[in-house]
């Protein structure tokens, strides 16, 4: 096993998917010669050719809409949307067509499409390059939504997403692309839609995904120094959500903090809080607390540290929870 970055791990996963099935296509802006703006598709066109790794015109609706036609023809397109804030021109095709064709056709027209979206802030980018729009997609029936947080998951989850017969919006935390860890390419991966307890603890449960997993783990390390043990759960899949480990955990800890970069109102933490309240009401020692971005557009880069949840804001929420 060698340590690779998360970006490289996705690249390796895409490569293996392209090798395994001739119907898999990679398509998007700059995915060919350049290897993507984050180099996630680096070298794939060279090895699989322009017919399999397709540099498309610059139009997101076109990328998704033509992928729909290709999927109807039996292909399994993996579309890259260059940045989170650019998915909106393709939003209609995703939520009105990709999400609904199976249902509309009662299973006759499956949509095995993966839509990769580098998302989230923390890289000092200009506007429209740092958004966390996952709730829009989770709100749309017919789509599945996942987010990887580390190289091993990234390697396996991208392959599992491509194998899925359901359309999957695949959120990649761009500020973690360069995080390195070992990837066991022979491993038996967890099922794509399973959440995972990645650090056990007894005092408070912290649920997170994507870029906030690293932040939450750092918070858990810091809390441990003061004798507070956080149980950190990486949700991994946002639709469907696997909340069984969360219920188990909350029934032991009695407390839950949900961490997410998106604006707070009508975001996923609110949904998680509701589900946990419905099922764990008599176990809760404190209300479910949310640590999120603010109900404001993403700020200029030099203010993003104020917007993004960090270790201290997570610890502050934990303290508030423990104070009940």
């Amino acid at each position, binding site marked *: 096993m060698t340590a690779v970055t998360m970006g490289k791990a996705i690249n390796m996963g895409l490569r293996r998917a392209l090798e395994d099935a001739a119907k898999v296509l990679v398509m998007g802006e700059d995915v060919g010669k350049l290897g993507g703006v984050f180099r996630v598709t680096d070298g794939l066109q060279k090895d699989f050719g322009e017919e399999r790794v397709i540099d498309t015109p610059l139009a997101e609706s076109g990328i998704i*809409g033509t992928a729909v036609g290709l999927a109807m023809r039996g292909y399994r397109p993996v579309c890259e949307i260059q940045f989170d804030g650019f998915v909106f021109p393709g939003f209609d095709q995703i939520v009105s067509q990709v999400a609904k064709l199976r249902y509309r056709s009662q299973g006759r027209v499956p949509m095995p499409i993966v839509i990769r979206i580098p998302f989230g802030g923390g890289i000092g980018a200009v506007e429209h390059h740092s958004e966390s729009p996952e709730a829009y997609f989770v709100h749309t029936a017919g789509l599945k939504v996942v987010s990887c947080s580390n190289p091993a998951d990234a390697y396996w989850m991208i392959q599992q997403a491509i194998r899925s017969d359901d359309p999957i919006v695949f959120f990649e935390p761009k500020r973690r692309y360069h995080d390195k860890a070992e990837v066991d390419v022979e491993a038996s991966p967890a099922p794509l839609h399973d959440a995972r307890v990645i650090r056990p603890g007894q005092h408070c449960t912290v649920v997170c995904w994507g870029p906030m997993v690293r932040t939450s783990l750092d918070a858990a390390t810091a809390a441990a120094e003061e004798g507070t043990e956080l149980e950190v759960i990486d949700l991994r899949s946002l639709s469907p959500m696997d909340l069984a480990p969360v219920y188990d955990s909350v029934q032991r800890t009695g407390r839950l903090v949900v961490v997410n970069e998106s604006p707070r109102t009508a975001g996923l933490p609110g949904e998680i809080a509701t589900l946990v309240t419905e099922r764990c009401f008599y176990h809760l020692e404190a209300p479910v607390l949310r640590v999120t971005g603010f109900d404001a557009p993403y700020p200029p880069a030099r203010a993003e540290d104020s917007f993004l949840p960090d270790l201290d804001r997570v610890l502050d929420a934990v303290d508030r929870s423990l104070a009940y």
Partner: protein
Amino acid sequence: MTVDSMTASPRQGTDCVQLLTPEGERVRPPGYENVEFSADELRNFYRDFVLIRRIDTEATALQRQGELGIWASLLGQEAAQVGSARALRPDDYVFPTYREHGAAWCRGIDPIRLLGLYRGVDHGDWDPAEYNFGLYTIVIGAQCLHAAGYAMGMMRDGADGAVLAYFGDGASAQGDVNESFIWAGVFNAPVVFFCQNNQWAISVPLQRQTRTPLYKRAEGFGFPGIQVDGNDVLAVHEVTKRALQNAREGNGPALIEAVTYRMGAHTTNDDPTRYRIAGEVEEWRLKDPIERVRVYLARNGLVDQAFFDSIEEEANDLAATLRKQCLALPDPDPMRVFSEVYAESSPLLDEEREQFARYLASFEGGAQ
């Protein structure tokens, strides 16, 4: 120079292809001198026309009687649809919008399937792969991108079919339609874009959608555009046949603008008397696509009265059957709302389904 004098008319141009005049006269413009149609072909066009118009009339009546939630009439557009759809080979693939009842008929789809959609019992209950005819697409223009992608897939597969994408003059303003032109152009995809320019996007006239004749847009995307008299089934058929064949031979996409007219409302929900003048409708009534074929057949002795009578009878039978079938369409099972949302279901959705099933069962006598 005024703005008006700089503006090309978006309406019918002088190079609009026509092979059969509104008066039923056969004409032979340059490039089409040797186009011939057999008597059988002409009779079949006529039969398609009458049956489709009857389906449309019956569906409109059913809507008025509360049996359909809504209906999008194709009245006046029969030639554009029959002419183009009859130019297809079985292995070609069609992406329709929501008004292609004539094209669906030509592909062999039972009209009751169309009524099911408008009655609200399903979202279109035919297998697209069986008829090579996609499901109706309600979001304007979205299907043109699917058509371009499907055509790219055909090309990759080495299949020698082509794709026909229907859309309207209103859709020509959509980004998706223009993006599909770009994709088809740069990838040389075998797709024929077939615009039924019926002059109105609900209440908004063509002049508010475009400043230039629609077929001329093709040049800017790098492929041929051609304007055809959309109420002339012969011209539509010939032009579409050539474009499809050209696409199959690897020469890329084409845009056909069929100049036609929506004689009725956009759907049974709107009232065209609010936005267009009676004179315009009367003008187009004289260009009726069915009448000119009828005149041509009769005047040239290709049919007798018995032919017309037998088709009339067939149409009456079809309408009666359709009405009976429509009234017999069962409402979907309440649990149908959960069906086929995902290939691999989701635990939270499963839970909702179970809760709803328990709720239904809690009533006396169970779910029904």
